[in-house]
Each structure stands twice: as C-alpha cells, then as structure tokens.
C-alpha cells in the first residue's frame, strides 16, 4: 500500500489534534484526583463513548475483521452476547456500589469491601496485565505498519508511544477520555465506508449469504455442537463461558473500562455510561466484523480476466506450508477499496484505535499503581502533590514498560500464548468475588481472597493440562478442545465456579464483618437512589430495557 501526500496531511492533522486536546486540558490536572480520576467531572455522552473506545484497540479492530473472515457472523457473539448483557448489568446493579463507595479504583473497592491482601493481589495482577496488553497491541501495530507501509518498526512504535505519552502526561485521564471520543468517531468514519463498499460489492448481505457456507452467516443456528461451526464452540460454552463469565468479568470488573464510568459527573451519569455506550457498541459489528465476512465472499466472485475480485492474504505457516493470514484482511481490503484521501482517514482510524487502547491501559495502570500499590505499600499519608508527581512519573514508566513488553512480544512468541490466555481468564474469578461481595453480605475477606487465588491458579492449572490447536498442555494432555476459543470459555467457567464455591465455603467458616461497616458496599445495606426527578429517557431502567430489546432483535435477525 502506498500513501499519497494528502494521506500524510490527514495523519499529521490528527496527531496535532490529539496533542492540542492534551495541551488545552493541561490546567485541569492540578491534583492527583484530577490527573488520575478526572475529578469526577466528565459529561455522560463523553464517558459513554470513551467506555467502549478504551476497549476498541488496534488489535480489536484488526482481530475482529480477521475473525469475521475466519468465523463469520458468529464473531458478533463477542458483542451481542459477550458485551451487551454485561454492560446492562454493570449500569443497573454494580455502578451504584462503585460510584457510591467513592473508591478511586476497582482494587480500592476490594479493600473497602474485603481487606488489604485481596486488594494487593488484584492490583498487582491488574498492573502486570495492563502493561503486557498495551505492549502486545503496540507490537501488533508496529508489525502491521512495517508489513503494509514499510515503516520502520522501532520508529513507528516509539513515535506513537511518544504521542500517547505526551497527551496523557499533559491532561491525565481527562485528556485520555476526551481523545478516546475523537478516536471513536474517527474509527467509525474511517471504516464504515469500507464496510458499506465491501458489502455492496459482494452483492449486499443476501449476496454474501448466497456465497458463503450457512454456518458463517448464522450466529445461532449451527451452535448445537462444536463440530458444526467454524469457531469450534457449543452453545453452553458460548452462553456460560463467553456470555456470562468472560463478558461480565471483563465489562464489570476490568478497571480499564470501569474507570471511564467512574469519571462521570454524577451517580446517574455513571449508571447511564455503560447503558448509553451499549447502543453504539451493538452496531460496531457492522463496521468491524462485516468487512471480514464480505472479504470471504469477494474471494469467491470471479472478476474480469478470470481471477477472483479479492484473494485472502497468505503467509508462511509454522509447518512450512502457506496458510491464510487473517490479520491482514483489513489492510488488504483498504488497499482494494480506498483511493488516496479516504485511505489516509482509514489509516488514521487504525492509529487512533491503537492510541485509544494504549492510553486506556496507561491511565488505568498509573491510577492502580499510584493509589493501590504506591500509596498502600510504599508511602502512606504524603501530601496530594506528591501523589500527583508519582502519578505523572508512573505514566512515563508505564509507557516505557509497554515498549519493553512490545519488544519482548517480538522475541518470545510463546510467552504471548500464555499471556493472551491469562488476560482471558484473569477477570473470570474476579467476577465471582464481586458478585458475592456486592450481593451477599455474609461473604468475608478471607473467603474472597482464598476464592480469588484458587480461581486464578485453578485456571492456570487447567490450561497446563489441556490442549487446543497445539496450545496449552505444558504439563500433560488430559483433554483436547476443538479450538482455543472453546478452551478459554471452559477455563473461564471453571475459574469462576471454583472461585465462587471456595469463597462461599470459606466465608461460612470465617467471621463476617459488622453490617454497619458494609453500608454503601453491599446490596440490601445500601440505599440506591430512585431517579424520580429524572426525565423518563434518563432513567437507567428505561434505557436498559431499550438496549436489551435492541440486542434481542439483532440476535434474532442474524440467528
């Protein structure tokens, strides 16, 4: 792919824009609370879009188009089942405790509800996870730019990291959130023309359906048994593993997204953040997955001269044979459909997605490090300006560590398999802890801690003893899954269940806390404000019903 001068102009305008927003917001970051938690002052439409944009990293964008080409419309399960119900639950039932408790982070809530060791365990796991996921996504972007545009890996990684660092250092979380909204708009603007044109060229949805095998254009019909669909999963794994454990674990307890809602300017705004965010979220598959599905159909249409309109990109596989390189589907499609001009917008959208993902990780990392590790274990009771300085330094260190992780990812590909898996399950047991902590006043600190540890290490153990697509099975092979996806879903189910059971059993045998200490932290001991004064369309319940009805319609439509 070759860029024209106009494409570079668009890219440069965007860079100037994000830096300018950071510059304009620099005066808003004068206390550690401003810098790390936005001082709870961000309007709801901004937190809602940032809520979904922080999750929409470059890997997500490239990966969803790739999965669209590999698995078809079933990929949409990651949105319609794997996100929407969890986002609704978060807004209706969990946000009152997060926002009402005045906790500054998810680990801090664990400290309030349970104890120091539970917070420490979670804070440490989370800090390591954010660094590695930002590093892996940096590596993926650098590799892609090198492959597609011939840009130097080191230069593009360092340059984009420097820009993210500049605007998060200047304006803190507010700057990251504001830029995430701009980035979200740009991703939609840059990729919806591609989705529309690729789909139209493949003969519309009907044209795609007529050219592809039925199990790529139906999301529920072929899910009865793992052998019937390209994902190699079956309905229980999808609903319980992805739809319940993984998605609720991610959207309800991952501080990366929860932090966006916690930055909202009122309780009502915080509750509406995931609910409003769910509306654009459920239509994103049409922008990010559809091009991948259309690509497969285009590869079956004969063009003038006998060749197909499009060929799926190939690469040299580990076995020495050529295999399909799905990660390049998005960029090769762009080259086929975009002339200079809109190509620049598309590329800028890709860069924007990378930046929003990375800034999300960095801002979550510096908050957890400053409040839950530094203030808790290294230096307590210092003046606020000290923590502001620490937060700013941690931002620099976080970016530097991510760059290091990006290079590590390049050198040791096997480590990545393990880490990818850890990210997949680290939140799974945590959701059991939160569920019991928020809705069962009898659950105790020792119960939560032992459950969390059992769930986390139980998951690692199962991964070491099962195999899927040649991954896992470090200590032996007791069971073989049909796909890594099925393996992840099932490990998440086991991690959640074991954490849940151990927490319940240990709680019963340990001393509960006094009820008076749990006010504002547990359901039944907390007064949840009714929104009688709110206009009907501002009420969380009304919004939630609307969102769920839309999600059901989409699921049925593409069943």
């Amino acid at each position, binding site marked *: 792919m070759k860029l024209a001068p*106009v494409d570079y102009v*668009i890219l440069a305008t*965007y860079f100037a824009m994000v830096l*300018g927003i950071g510059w304009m917001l620099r005066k808003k970051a004068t206390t550690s609370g401003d810098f790390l938690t936005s001082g709870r002052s961000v309007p709801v439409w901004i937190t809602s879009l940032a809520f979904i944009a922080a999750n929409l990293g470059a890997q997500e964008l490239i990966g969803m188009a790739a999965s669209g080409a590999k698995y078809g419309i079933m990929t949409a399960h990651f949105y319609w089942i794997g996100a929407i119900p969890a986002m609704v639950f978060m807004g209706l039932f969990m946000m009152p405790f997060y926002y009402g408790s005045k906790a500054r982070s998810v680990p801090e809530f664990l400290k309030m509800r349970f104890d120091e060791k539970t917070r420490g365990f979670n804070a440490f796991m989370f800090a390591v996870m954010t660094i590695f996921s930002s590093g892996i996504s940096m590596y993926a972007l650098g590799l892609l730019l090198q492959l597609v545009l011939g840009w130097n890996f080191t230069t593009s990684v360092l340059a984009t990291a420097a820009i993210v660092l500049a605007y998060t250092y200047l304006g803190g979380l507010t700057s990251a959130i504001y830029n995430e909204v701009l980035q979200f708009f740009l991703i939609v*603007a840059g990729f919806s023309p591609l989705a529309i044109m690729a789909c139209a060229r493949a003969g519309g949805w009907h044209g795609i359906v007529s050219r592809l095998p039925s199990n790529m254009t139906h999301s529920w019909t072929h899910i009865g048994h793992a052998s019937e669909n390209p994902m190699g999963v079956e309905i229980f794994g999808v609903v319980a593993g992805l739809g319940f454990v993984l998605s609720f674990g991610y959207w309800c307890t991952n501080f990366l997204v929860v932090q966006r809602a916690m930055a909202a300017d009122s309780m009502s705004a915080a509750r509406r953040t995931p609910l409003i965010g769910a509306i654009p979220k459920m239509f994103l598959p049409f922008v990010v997955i559809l091009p991948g599905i259309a690509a497969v159909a285009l590869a079956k249409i004969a063009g003038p001269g006998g060749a197909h309109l499009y060929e799926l990109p190939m690469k040299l596989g580990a076995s020495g044979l050529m295999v399909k390189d799905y990660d390049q589907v998005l960029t090769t499609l762009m*080259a086929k459909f975009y*002339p200079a001009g809109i190509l620049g*917008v598309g590329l800028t959208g890709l860069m924007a997605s990378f930046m929003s993902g990375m800034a999300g990780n960095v801002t979550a990392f510096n908050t957890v490090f400053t409040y839950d590790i530094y203030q808790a274990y290294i230096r307590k009771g210092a003046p606020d300006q000290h923590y502001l300085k620490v937060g700013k330094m941690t931002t620099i260190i976080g970016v530097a560590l991510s760059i290091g992780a990006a290079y590590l990812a390049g050198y040791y590909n096997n480590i990545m398999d393990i880490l990818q898996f850890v990210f997949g399950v680290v939140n799974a047991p945590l959701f059991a802890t939160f569920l019991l902590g928020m809705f069962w006043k009898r659950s105790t600190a020792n119960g939560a801690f032992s459950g969390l540890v059992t769930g986390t290490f139980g998951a690692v153990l199962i991964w070491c003893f099962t195999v899927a697509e040649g991954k896992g099975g470090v200590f032996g092979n007791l069971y073989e899954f049909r796909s890594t996806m099925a393996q992840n879903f099932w490990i998440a189910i086991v991690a959640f269940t074991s954490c849940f059971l151990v927490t319940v059993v240990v709680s019963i045998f340990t001393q509960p806390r006094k009820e008076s200490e749990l006010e504002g932290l547990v359901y039944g001991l907390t007064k949840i404000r009714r929104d009688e004064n709110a206009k009907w369309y501002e009420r969380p319940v009304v919004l939630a019903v609307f969102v769920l009805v839309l999600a059901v319609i989409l699921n049925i439509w593409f069943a």
Partner: protein
Amino acid sequence: MDLRVPSGWFFTLLGVILVGMGLISPDARAALTDVNVNLYSGIAMLIFGLFLLLMARLAASRSR
C-alpha cells in the same frame, strides 16, 4: 472545554479535504470501486463536523 468544538473543527477540516479530493480528481479509484468515495465520505464528515459545531454553539448560548 467543550469537546464538540475541537472535534467539530477536525471533522469539518477532514470533510473539506476529502470533498476537495473528490472534486479535483474524481477519477481516483481503488481497484474494486466505481464510486467517488472521497466525495461522498467527505460530505458525510463535513455534515457531522458542522453538526457538532452547531450543537456546541447551541449549548454555549443556552448556558449564557
């Protein structure tokens, strides 16, 4: 700062650039399309940018 102002200007500018491209070289095509992509997506971005600016203007005059 009202985020609608900078992002409104940004999309207006993008729209102007793309519409300009679409008018100056209407035959610029990638391999698989026969529509003037730059022109149409440029118009869409221009409208979106102006819409954000209008919303920001309305909000500012209401709070005054």
